[in-house]
């Protein structure tokens, strides 16, 4: 009895310590990002930094505007979601509602492999396959247009396609499990009322799984927003207005590509870029929390 009590106590202590490590890490990161990211906001000026459109950190009169960088992150993530979520959701419908066990197994393991693929592989394929194709498209679209700066296919469109593929596994797996969690009674009731299988899926099952699907979308946003390596390899990396055929830089690649040699205010601004990214991720997680709560409330 006493021995068991000791084991209980010890286990509890170890578990508590582990939990504290996670909390401590989050608090430390948050604190660090604010401490490191805030000075540049003061030094450069909040408006000049966040909404400035000229990024010339090493010029004799430097300019640290990151507005185009923020926009590039938001737009490429948004567009990737627009492309990736429908494909992901429909794949999830296929997996949970239509496919047999055998075919479902094959698609399922393909999705898992896609999820486990390191982002540098996506970047490599994007750089070697997608970019040359984009260059051909770019030459066709802008033939004879002297005002367009040719990027060799490294543009925002490439980044969007790569991101859309990269968020697929997240969206698919979360959506599949939430669709599978929908009670079979609902399907039976819908079919009994004379609805076809398609009507049942789109009018009854998907609405019932709404909060789970939203969770998948939000997780996809988080993944797309935080991706650095693949984007760095395919998006060109010059700071430009985020148009489809322009070479762009996102919040993540901004830090990756310039941290190496940056110093002084330039370096501080990169921390502010990190802070902005971190705030975006916090907002995404907040929405995620709300979506989950809404889901729980619905099930009650």
């Amino acid at each position: 009895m006493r021995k068991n009590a000791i084991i209980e106590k010890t286990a509890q202590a170890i578990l508590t310590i582990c939990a504290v490590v996670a909390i401590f890490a989050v608090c430390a990161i948050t604190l660090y990002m604010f401490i490191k990211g805030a000075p540049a906001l003061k030094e450069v000026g909040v408006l000049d930094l966040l909404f400035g459109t000229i990024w010339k950190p090493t010029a004799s009169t430097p300019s640290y505007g990151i507005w185009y960088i923020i926009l590039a992150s938001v737009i490429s993530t948004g567009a990737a979601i627009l492309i990736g979520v429908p494909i992901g959701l429909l794949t999830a419908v296929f997996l949970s509602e239509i496919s047999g066990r055998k075919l479902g197994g094959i698609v399922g393991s393909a999705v898992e492999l896609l999820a486990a693929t390191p982002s540098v592989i996506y970047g490599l394929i994007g750089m070697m396959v997608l970019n040359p194709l984009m260059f051909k498209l770019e030459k066709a679209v802008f033939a004879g247009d002297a005002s367009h700066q040719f990027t060799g296919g490294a543009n925002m469109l490439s980044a969007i396609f790569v991101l859309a593929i990269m968020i697929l596994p997240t969206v698919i797996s979360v959506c599949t499990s939430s669709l599978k969690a929908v009670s079979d009674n609902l399907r039976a009731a819908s079919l009994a009322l004379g609805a076809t299988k398609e009507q049942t899926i789109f009018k009854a099952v998907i609405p019932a799984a709404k909060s789970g699907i939203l969770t998948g979308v939000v997780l996809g946003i988080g993944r797309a927003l935080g991706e650095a390596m693949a984007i760095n390899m395919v998006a060109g990396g010059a700071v430009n207005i985020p148009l489809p055929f322009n070479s762009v830089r996102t919040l993540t690649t901004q830090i990756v590509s310039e941290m190496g040699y940056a110093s002084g205010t330039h370096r501080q601004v990169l921390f502010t870029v990190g802070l902005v990214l971190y705030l975006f991720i916090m907002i995404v997680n907040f929405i995620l929390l709300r979506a989950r709560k809404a889901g729980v409330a619905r099930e009650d």
Partner: protein
Amino acid sequence: MSKKILAAITAMGLMAFAFAGCTTTEETEATSKSLTGNIALAGSTSMEKLCEAMSESFMTVNPGVTVTVEYTGSGAGIEAVTSGSVDIGDASRALKEDEIAGGLVENVVAIDGIAVITDTSNSVTDVTSEELAKIYTGEISNWSELGGADQPIVVIGREAGSGTRDAFEELLEVEDICAYAQELDSTGAVLAKVAATPGSIGYVSLDVLDDTVIGMKINGYEPTEEQILAGTYALQRPFVMATRGAISEQSEEVQAWFAYLNSAEGQEIIRAVGLIVPQ
């Protein structure tokens, strides 16, 4: 294994000192083995790779000497050595006349060369520095304007803060007005992208030039070590370690530092970081 290497390095270092002793005075030779003190350097950020490699190796050979290097920029480095707050001022450019008149001695320790590269299918392989500046500022945007195929020019460069970018823009006098289509964060990435993208142009340090790309002639001169040493190839800059007065007037540690730079081992380090040994 590592002990052997260490022993070899030490032996080479000692030999270098013996050399240094010969060229200066007998006294140096006698004391060089137990040299203690500090050497302070400040200046060019572009010279970081060279200074780090050199100081690390130098301190292995001379455990008693501490070398500190600050990377504050060429201008600040020259100022610091002029005011006497450091022993050596690093500058990745030739000294100006007034700086030399102010008592500084220009010790060129290495030469940095930049190769302009294009993909192997490009028929334009020779450009003038004016044309190059126009390509990088966006004034020339198609190879046909330079007598090549009707092919848009994809302008590739390095990220802000890169030493190669600084050097390139400075030498062509296009600082902060370049219009890059792609900004990549490593020499290897530039090389790979240029090799893979038809109609592209990029710049890399001379030492990484290989046959996956064409190293363009500038003003008719090939990007080779011979042309750089002859002074005909335009895209080059000296790495200067400026001292107040001649090297022989410096402290023993500083004299040992320069002796080490000129030793076989020091020159090996200069080559290893991609630079050219001046003659």
